């Protein structure tokens, strides 16, 4: 089965948020491998499956709150990132360090194609989230991240614009559990 393109994923999630259960299956098929890939890159394989399952349970539990029109992948990765942070808070970071020594071969190497794929998709998701901001916010964020041309406004106005842009970006990325 082909991987649905991002617009299709956005549409599937919007439909699922409205209660159309038919959208669950294709959405799960598209999100499950992404969750597994990210967790396999970040965690030893014995923890990756559990962490991916836990993250997907959170994603679908919050599906009813997803707002139509928002891009789904930035929101999805924000939840996954939050799940990773939760794992760390639970003390799995310590276990992870121990596991790193024992299972070094089990983790994805820096030049691993899977890691590259995950990183590319994370960058794409962030770019997509920035692109869905209004023009002023997108330009302000691009200047802060990529050092593109600074918008011609006063320093104070620019600071406010950046602050608003970051707030909007946080909201767009899910503001999951208030983070």
């Amino acid at each position: 089965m082909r991987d649905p393109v991002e617009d299709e994923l956005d549409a599937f999630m919007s439909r699922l948020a409205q209660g159309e259960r038919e959208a669950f299956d294709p959405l799960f098929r598209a999100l499950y491998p992404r969750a597994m890939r990210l967790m396999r890159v970040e965690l030893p394989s014995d923890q990756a499956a559990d962490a991916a399952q836990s993250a997907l349970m959170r994603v679908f539990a919050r599906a009813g709150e997803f707002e139509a029109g928002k891009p789904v992948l930035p929101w999805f990765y924000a939840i996954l990132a939050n799940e990773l942070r939760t794992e760390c808070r639970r003390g799995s970071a310590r276990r992870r360090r121990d596991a790193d020594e024992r299972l070094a071969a089990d983790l994805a190497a820096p030049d691993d194609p899977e890691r590259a794929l995950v990183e590319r998709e994370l960058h794409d998701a962030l770019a997509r989230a920035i692109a869905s901001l209004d023009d002023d916010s997108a330009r302000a964020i691009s200047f802060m991240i990529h050092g593109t041309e600074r918008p011609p406004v006063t320093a104070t106005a620019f600071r406010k614009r950046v602050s608003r842009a970051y707030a909007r970006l946080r909201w767009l990325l899910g503001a999951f559990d208030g983070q």
Partner: protein
Amino acid sequence: MDSNWDTTYGAARRHYELGRLRGAVVRALVVVGLAAVVGGLAIGGAALVWLPLAFIVSVFTEWQGRWWMRGARRGTIAGFISLVLPLSILRPCCGSNPAAVLGAACCTMPSVCWVAGGALGLALSLVLPRDGAANRWEAALGMLLGVLSITVLRCSALFLAEAAGLLGGLLAGVVAASLARALLDRSRLAT
């Protein structure tokens, strides 16, 4: 498919339904709270015994989602309109004397309730969400559930025949208008 896929699929699906249910309960509590305030002020404490029905209907339609939810939301708004219909309209022969209107000695006019319910039902059908035939019926049923679950609070201040008239009028209005629209759409498609 491996066992982890199946396990995760099932768990994600369960959490999706539970998440919807949780959201539905929160939204239903808002509707019921509003109905309690409006019903309590406009009708009195007797109306509040019907609130569990409004809660159950709201939870069901919000959890179901899709056209059930869209129809029920519009029906609920119409239900609130029926709550503020003055008794002097539903029982006109009693005049505008509030004491006489509320008294059992006052005459009853179920036919006026039929007309009021029918008019509300016909008006509701104008705001019925538009889509394919199957979805339209889903929306119509949701709308009917939504409007009845709130209008039933109004009925606590009415006599049985009047209540039956109001609810029957609503039912007849929505069904008649939905049928008319379905036939109209079919004839448009045929030509």
